[in-house]
């Protein structure tokens, strides 16, 4: 299956560009079909044993060092779900057929990058696929021109270059001190680390911190998310940043570092700082997308914090929070797209009582915000509970306390969002506003249902996601 996950999107990309101009309107649907297939493959793979031996001739020609495990499956599932939501939003909000065509192509390029990140077993190849995803995203941000879009993309590029330098230096150092760059070689080197091995690991982690926009490398995140067109925001916030930085971090901690895990304290400190800084920055925002961007930052901090806790439980908690946050945050960006489309603004100070005019958007937004804040019985509650338990098991009581207290700040800024946007009496200027179209409601409702279902059927969800065996 691993080969198909790279080659099918690549082949689709070629097919899209061979389409006659008048058929280009179908590009989004073709991309949507690929995403549906990927989601189905990642989901069904847990229940149905498929014989992939028919791919043997392909494997003799192409020698790709790939493997799919539970953790890979989780990222593939996330990429499929979030990608479908982004494509549906793109169909609704990108009016120009040419923009839609470019968007569809770049989603496929990014999908190859994300799928690669999910399955690679080598540090340099991981870097290459992180770059594939990043380059596609730089361009996605600027699909619709504008000063803010260029500024956001520019900041992302500059910080990404810094991350690339750090990661490539790390690869070079690992070649020197470990004699190889496969995860196995890195794991062996880290079992008895010397100063150069430590430096190499620290550089790679710093590179991933930049890609994941963790504090203190978070400068580009809010600008990029805010400046990007709605479907790109959904895609970036839902999966791109998480795959490039956070998933790669989970992968390295779970696979390459193993029990050795040098610098667990670094993960704890960076995670805690990111949670707190992100939460307080979110609290002070009046632009809805900007608040959601800083909220993403804070929630990614939770994932990193979990990795610093008890190893096995921490990885499980991190993986689950990764999935929950991908679903809920992309849903909130879909809600933001609906509001922007109907109201023409994202300034929360100018809104009020919107839930009365847009009940579905209001209700789904409430589900996502409460889940991210960690309220039972929604999905976010379980992953946050596991994060606290992972920290508690590792006797990191102070960090567990930070995780709990920061959840209150999360609840505070999301209640502030609800109050300013949805609650209260509808302001006169929004009296004629109508609910968003089905193109925006379908992904919002579907994602909200996933959050509710995951929360209520948590044990079953654990089995489906299969992250316990990661």
């Amino acid at each position, binding site marked *: 299956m691993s080969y198909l996950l790279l080659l099918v999107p690549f082949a689709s990309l070629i097919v899209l560009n061979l389409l006659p101009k008048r058929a280009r309107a179908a590009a989004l649907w073709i991309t949507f079909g690929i995403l549906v297939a990927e989601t189905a493959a990642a989901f069904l793979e847990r229940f149905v044993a498929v014989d992939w031996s028919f791919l043997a001739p392909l494997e003799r020609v192409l020698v790709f*060092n790939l493997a799919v495990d539970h953790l890979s499956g989780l990222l593939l599932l996330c990429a499929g779900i979030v990608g479908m939501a982004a494509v549906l939003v793109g169909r609704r909000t990108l009016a120009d057929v040419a923009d839609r065509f470019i968007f569809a192509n770049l989603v496929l390029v990014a999908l190859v990058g994300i799928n*690669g990140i999910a399955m690679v077993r080598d540090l340099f190849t991981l870097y290459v696929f992180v*770059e594939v995803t990043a380059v596609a995203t730089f361009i996605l941000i600027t699909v619709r021109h504008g000063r803010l879009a260029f500024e956001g993309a520019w900041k992302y590029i500059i910080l990404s270059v810094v991350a690339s330098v750090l990661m490539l230096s790390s690869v070079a150092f690992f070649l020197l001190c470990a004699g190889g760059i496969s995860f196995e070689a890195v794991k062996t080197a880290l079992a008895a680390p010397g100063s150069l091995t430590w430096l190499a690991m620290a550089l790679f982690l710093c590179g991933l911190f930049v890609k994941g926009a963790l504090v203190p490398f978070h400068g580009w995140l809010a600008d990029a998310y805010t400046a990007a067109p709605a479907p790109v925001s959904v895609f970036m916030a839902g999966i791109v940043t998480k795959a490039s930085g956070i998933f790669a971090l989970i992968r390295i901690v779970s696979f390459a570092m193993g029990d050795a895990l040098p610098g667990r304290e670094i993960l704890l400190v960076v995670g805690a700082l990111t949670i707190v800084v992100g939460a307080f920055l979110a609290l002070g925002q009046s632009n809805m997308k900007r608040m959601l961007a800083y909220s993403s930052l804070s929630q990614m901090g939770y994932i990193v914090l979990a990795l610093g806790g008890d190893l096995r439980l921490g990885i499980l908690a991190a993986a689950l929070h990764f999935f929950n946050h991908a679903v809920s945050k992309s849903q909130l960006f879909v809600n933001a797209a609906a509001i922007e489309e109907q109201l023409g603004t994202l300034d929360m100070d100018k809104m009020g009582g919107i839930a009365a005019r847009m009940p579905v958007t209001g209700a789904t937004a409430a589900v996502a915000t409460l889940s991210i804040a960690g309220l039972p019985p929604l999905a976010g509650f379980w992953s946050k509970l596991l994060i606290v338990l992972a920290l508690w098991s590792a006797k990191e009581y102070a960090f567990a306390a930070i995780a709990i207290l920061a959840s209150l700040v999360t609840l505070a800024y999301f209640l502030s969002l609800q109050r300013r946007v949805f609650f209260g009496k509808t302001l006169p200027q929004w009296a004629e506003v109508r609910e968003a179209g089905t193109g925006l409601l379908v992904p919002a409702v579907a994602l909200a249902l996933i959050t509710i279902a995951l929360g209520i059927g948590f044990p079953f969800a654990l089995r489906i996601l299969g992250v316990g065996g990661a």
Partner: protein
Amino acid sequence: MTLLLVVLVLAALWASMATALLRATLALALSSALLAVFMFSLGAVWAAVIELSVCAGLISVVFVSVISLTEQRPLTELLAQRKSRLRRFWPLPLLLIAVGVGLSFVHTPVQIALPLPSGDGDVRTVLWTLRQLDLFGQIMILLAGVFGVLVLFKKEAKDGD
């Protein structure tokens, strides 16, 4: 070699600090050429050839071609920008030099596992057999770059209408 390294760093600094695009391109080409010399002296002949032909050669040609399509900004604006940049970034070169000098005093014993792993040492084997997946990734990056050009130029034409 040390002198060469100093010139390389100075050329790289020039490339990042120059206000004129053409000069920045020349500085970048110079630093790439010097890097190729370094690679050659370290025995990485193929890497040196690719660095020289692609980075110092081809990319410089592309840069110069694009710059030839642009227009010169007014001199007063350029001078104002230069002053502003100097005011904001003057500590950066000094910081770089300070870090370099500081690091030269650090003697950390490192264990280096030589010889370097490189398959059978043949660049063709490394590229086409051992690192096929990386090549595939490179193709995807190139494709993304093509879409980048399409986005920028198509839109510019539309904006100019």
